[in-house]
């Protein structure tokens, strides 16, 4: 089994070899390492993408808007991913970001996962009827575990989820009531003597 350290180093060098700058190659190394850590096929997809890149001219998207569509070929998932990371402060203000035609979307996902951590928000992604939840770069929840990621996506929708509870107020109150059973009801003397602070604040 290859270690993650080996994966990151090999990806960085290979990315430099196909023409990315050293700084971008470092980003790619980190992202593919993360995909492999999550059990997704980073190496396989990157390898295939770099092969395709020799015959196809993928488009670079340097400035991300709410709606993005390439003029001809699909977007390069790497430049798209790095741009997304770099522009995280502006893109997170969009309600939904739509991107048409992306090559090897799983590669892009690795950058989105890191973007989720940087922004501190979960990211919900829908592409070609598949749904993925990127959870602060701690994990990726998807229904792809038993199927291959496609090497092309016609459209991706990205939504930053506001941090909100997954439970109702009454469910919380019910649980909190149980937690209160570990507390002690304070008598007057306990109220006076057990806190240790706040008794002589009129100074």
């Amino acid at each position, binding site marked *: 089994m290859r*270690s993650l*350290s*080996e994966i990151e180093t090999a990806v960085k060098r290979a990315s430099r070899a196909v023409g990315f700058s050293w*700084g971008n190659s470092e*980003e790619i190394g980190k992202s593919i390492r993360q995909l492999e850590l999550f059990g997704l096929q980073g190496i396989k997809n990157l390898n295939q993408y770099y092969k395709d890149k020799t015959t196809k001219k993928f488009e670079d998207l*340097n400035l991300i808007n709410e709606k993005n569509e390439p003029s001809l070929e699909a977007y390069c998932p790497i430049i798209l991913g*790095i741009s997304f990371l770099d522009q995280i402060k*502006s893109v997170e203000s969009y309600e939904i970001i739509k991107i048409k035609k992306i090559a090897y979307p799983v590669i892009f996902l690795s950058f989105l996962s890191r973007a989720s951590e940087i922004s501190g928000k979960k990211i919900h992604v829908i592409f070609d009827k598949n749904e993925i939840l990127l959870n602060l770069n701690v994990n990726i929840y998807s229904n792809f575990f038993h199927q291959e990621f496609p090497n092309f996506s016609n459209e991706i929708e990205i939504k930053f989820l506001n941090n909100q509870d997954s439970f109702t107020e009454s469910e919380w109150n019910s649980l909190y009531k149980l937690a209160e059973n570990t507390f002690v009801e304070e008598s007057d003397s306990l109220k006076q003597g057990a806190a240790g602070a706040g008794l002589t604040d009129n100074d």
Partner: protein
Amino acid sequence: MKIELRDPNTIMKLSRLGSFHQSKLSFLRSFLSEFKDWDYKRDLFNLDHNGYGEAVYSFKKKDRVYSLVCFANEIDDQERSDRVIATKWDAAFTLHDGVPSRDDIERLKNEVPKQEVGRLSFKELTLSRANKSVRVFNHVVDSLSEGKQPDLELLSKVGYLYRTTAVYGSGKFGLADRFRIKNREEINGPFRLEMMLVYLVRQFTFDQVNHVAHHKNPKSAVKLDKQICKNLGIGNSTGLGMAPFIVNHPTLLNNWILTRETALKKIREIKDVKEKDRELFIDCIKKSLTNITSWNTDSEYQQKKIKSLLKNIKKFIDYIENSFDFKAEYPFNKIYLWLEKNVCEESIEYVVSIMMEPYNNITEPLVSNMSSDEDRYFNIPTNRTVNELQKIIENKYPNILDINFDQKESQQNFWFISKNKEEPRLADRFEEHGSELEQPLAIARDIKKLYEKLLSEKNNITIAQFLSSNSELRHVVRRAFIVEKFPYSEIQDNTIGKDIVPIDMLRLKLSFFGALKFDPRSDKWLRICMFQGAPLPTELKNYDDQWVYKSNN
């Protein structure tokens, strides 16, 4: 009194970094301190009469076991090479996580002797190989088999029976990734498992030499005297492979240097020095003279440094014995200021290291700060502005900005990775081919390039906007934001200039390992000795903390 930390623009120069010496903060010493309470055991010793076969040594505490698995092999003299291009070694080693099963040992027997072309698993933590100093090893075998102890003068000249030629860890060749084990308290210090491997290998070399001598002449052979064993270490040959490490791990480098600088600052801030602390300091300085006089090297470069060191340390001893009042306030600060005025860089750093000896209370808590979770600082704050980045560079790289990279000699060299061995190398840009495949280790040049580019941009544009059309500078943009927070993360020198002495980079790292007796064999590789004078594993529970200065060699 409040003492400022020393200026990174002075300390992070290569000539200063290349003058660093081991100290209480060094990894081999903090390793011994951490593992002194662990149970040491030789679990397996299955060598034939010539000393070839397998052995296993372990450290155990509660449920945690680390096992060194050793494979000693027969090789021809002409196959023995310390260079990384070698394919066979006298012995090969791996540190296994836990107790290796029979199956593990069989698997490792096939893989470990192959080193870089073998495959290890997540159950292995470090990997290494070593060659005998044949002259010394054979002499010791002959002497012991005849019932005599070996010639101490010969042993003193070399200092070890074996020298390692590489020690690998952190995920190389399938070894466990650091993240799998990073939460273990006992290894919360850099290179602790690498230090364990080398330390246990040292014991294997003593056991092997005794074993071979015994089988050569069972009736009259004696064992190598324990005191002689203690005065032997493990040699190491180190080439350029180590140099890029300190460039590629900026926050880790910062934490090593910052820890050392913090210790020095705290010692200089001590108002009254206790008599016992003063005596210990002076005792270590005096005893350390043996380390200098027994420091052998053929390198003229190092001989000059040693000569100057010896002269300066004698001058310093004369000063503290005859002209200095230790009862004055802040004596270590006064000593430091005297050193800055009167002795060479090598001597300043030598005494700085020894200043730490009496102060476990200062150094011990600092050791845990010497690791780094580098991923935490990887992301670039792209919402910041070009103006801010420009200011950071002006503040943090003032000397780098003075270098004229239009001059040929300022970019005479380039770093590359050898296709044959996948190891870093340095070559003349104008004499050799391959500079188009240069590694991103010319930080000074690229920082200056970045700065010049920033000058032509509008001040208020964001780093995200800047990077969208300047991706070739991304690696140094990242570094500049790192150095903003970590002042000692960057070498403040030109790593591709004509006058670069690459062994300065190696020495910096090796001093933090705890190496002694740097012996440069050229400007690109050197030999060192580790654990010379260190307690044997059976003595760890109660050992002299200042063993470094009490070796007889």
